[in-house]
């Protein structure tokens, strides 16, 4: 099969710092401070969602009502990406790959049912559960709950119908979504694709999923490098969608290529500690056949979780002294949205012929950046790298 160059022509980016590539470029270059809500989900601080003009991307109120915040956020960012790429007319044959977590539960219903069940006699609890759920669950909530319905809503709201796939598996799923979407374009399965993920941080059901792992940072905000040996991640509201396109297709329609995908690779070491994860990442990096690290900058997706951080630092040390930015210290951790967001930030910097000031007190290195390596070490599993280059 032929191998065609794949470029990024559109970015849809929302975080607690704002929305759109320009807003992020400006904020990150002008001393952005983290936006933190330490009270609402105490003891777990989160980076909250900014106010969105949902009507601009999801014009029908009926569509908005069929979704909860996670799907709305993702559908909104997907629309931003399509607009940024000037690709509204290309959606019918656009391929779609979404990295998704779980959809929303009804937190109030869950708490009421839990209260009823904990005070019920065990032999009556089965019937009671059925009765409560059958009367209290909103019928349409199921659709807001299904992971593949973010993709479904993107198809409905934006008309993206070339194909639709939803990958699951936290951070790793997002890296593989981009890898697979890019590989399919490179080998001639279509000309344009939309890929990304979204994460709504202000959700107790997500807190309850991650808390048992002991991975959530507690108390006041601290940058990733200051979270000590125990470490921990702060959930951050985030959505990032990318329009990927073959270079020829972008050029033929006069679309500006923001960056070229030089390589993207993933693995999942079963034994991470003690160098397993660092070794896996080093092998991925070697597989990208880097001639040198000259002109290389790194945007790290470091979550703050201790084991992954130690391994990533060991890997990064093998690259020598390259400019390094830990975006999670400002944006928080957006699970399925983090890797696409960091790829978006990388493409944005390359398109601006620049890089970012330090995002974490430990961030070091300056100088001209010609290529950017994005890292994604998952909170539990997964190692992923993407190499972004200046557009040809």
């Amino acid at each position, binding site marked *: 099969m032929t191998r065609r160059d794949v470029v990024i022509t559109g970015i849809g980016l929302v975080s607690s710092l704002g929305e759109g590539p320009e807003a992020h470029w400006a904020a990150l270059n002008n001393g952005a401070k983290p936006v933190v809500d330490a009270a609402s989900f105490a003891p777990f601080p989160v980076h909250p969602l900014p106010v969105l003009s949902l009507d601009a991307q999801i014009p029908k109120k009926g569509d908005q009502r069929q979704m909860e915040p996670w799907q709305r956020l993702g559908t909104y960012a997907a629309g931003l990406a399509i607009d940024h790429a000037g690709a509204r007319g290309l959606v019918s044959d656009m391929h779609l790959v979404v990295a998704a977590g779980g959809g929303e539960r009804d937190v109030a219903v869950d708490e009421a049912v*839990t209260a009823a069940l904990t005070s019920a006699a065990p032999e009556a609890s089965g019937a009671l559960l059925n009765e409560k759920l059958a009367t209290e669950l909103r019928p349409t909530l199921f*659709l807001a709950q*299904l*992971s593949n319905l973010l993709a479904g809503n993107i198809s409905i709201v934006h008309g993206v119908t070339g194909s639709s796939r939803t990958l699951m*598996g*936290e951070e790793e799923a997002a890296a593989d979504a981009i890898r697979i979407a890019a590989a399919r374009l490179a080998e001639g399965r279509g000309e344009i694709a939309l890929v990304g993920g979204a994460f709504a941080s202000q959700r107790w059901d997500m807190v309850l999923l*991650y*808390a048992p792992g002991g991975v959530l940072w507690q108390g006041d905000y601290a940058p990733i490098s200051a979270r000590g040996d125990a470490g921990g991640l702060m959930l951050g509201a985030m959505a990032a969608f990318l329009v990927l396109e073959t270079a020829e297709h972008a050029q033929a329609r006069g679309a500006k290529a923001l960056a070229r995908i030089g390589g993207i690779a993933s*693995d999942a070491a079963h034994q991470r500690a003690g160098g397993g994860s660092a070794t896996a990442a080093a092998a991925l990096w070697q597989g990208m056949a880097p001639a040198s690290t000259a002109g290389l900058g790194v945007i790290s997706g470091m979550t703050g979780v201790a084991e992954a951080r130690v391994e990533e630092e060991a890997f990064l040390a093998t690259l020598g002294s390259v400019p390094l930015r830990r975006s999670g210290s400002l944006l928080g951790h957006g699970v399925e949205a983090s890797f696409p967001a960091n790829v978006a930030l990388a493409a944005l910097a390359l398109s601006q012929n620049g890089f970012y000031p330090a995002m974490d007190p430990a961030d070091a290195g300056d100088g001209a950046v010609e290529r950017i390596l994005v890292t994604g070490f998952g909170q539990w599993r997964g190692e992923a790298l993407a190499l972004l280059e200046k557009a040809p």
Partner: protein
Amino acid sequence: MKDHLGRPLVAVTGIGLVSPLGWGLEKNWAALLAGTSGITRIRRFATDHLKTTMAGTVDLPEEVAGAEPVPAPVRVERMAAAAIAEALAAAGMTEGAFDGPLMLGMPPVEMEWPQRVALARRAGGNGHAALSVASIGQRDLYETFLYGGVGERLALRFGTKGAPIAITTACATGASAIQLGVEAIQRGEAKSVIALGTDGSVQPEAVIRFSLLSALSSRNEDPTKASRPFEKSRDGFVMSEGAAALILEDLEHARARGATIIGLVRGCGERADNFHRTRSNPDGSSIIGAMKNALADAGLQPADIGYVNAHGTSTPENDKMEALGLRAVFGEAPPPISSNKSMIGHTLSAAGAIEAAFSLLTLRDQILPPTINHVEPDPTLGLDVVPNEARRVSGLRHVLSNSFGFGGQNVCLVLSAAP
């Protein structure tokens, strides 16, 4: 050994399968050809206040022995592991060092009521803050319900290479997993792939949620008669559980190691709907597009297809749209079409893989499995659904297997006889 587009041909060299009809491929196939229903009354949990009280269920040995029901991700993983182990043995491969990736079609999973109530008791409160704090350090909960958990454990056990890929495209999930595997081989990323679909979602909340969408049959009086795809009185689908795993291999690679070729995956086609969250585009354009894309990907014409393994859920809407789509692709006399779901129910994320597996056995044995419970044909559909009795055929070379998902994700596969 290349296809019409110069890509490696993709062989299937091993299959493993679990369904309400039993554990093991050949046992399932024999029951299917005999027209056996695997649908029963739900015994796993109380069914008071439920509109639907039957389903297809796969119980684990310890549950049969009286243990509390396991949560969905545990059931999903155990069925998947059994199916993969069977498929590897059939392919003549040993467990533990599989030289290729894992493509895992599975449902979304989440903490269920027993875990939530246990946490609340431990926390001494019902609020999410109390539960979350009480949960800290319970790594088993975290690793069980993370979406990456099932894939991680299967990848570890079977020694697959690279990051495991977990995919959900609703009722098309199993077919999507196979498609991912086929693409990896065609791309030259891998010589062999484990592709599977697995689902074990029969628990109270899932049943109630589907019920609230008015998607389920409520013909509870005789569960074996509830799933009636393409029949006039059909009233919804029947939830079910199961798993099927396929060992996909570059045909040259399979031949070089002397493997038995069960059949080929010749083509995959997909197309997304944009009309409604639970319904196809009214003109059928997306399911028609998915079928046509699969044929084009296989380099075949409609006339080359001798049998269609239907999506055939038994909902009024799906079966009407599938019939409309079939006529648009095949003309007024489409090939015979039957629905395995009449017997095993709708195994959701597993269905695409299970039905691909049965399609391959249909080709191997030259016999079409029936659509059971076909009492009164729906006169508006005009299909040969292989009613009630399996049918011997000869010269069958290519089968189309349809999978259409909630959320508009449609995937069709073309399975072909071994060359």
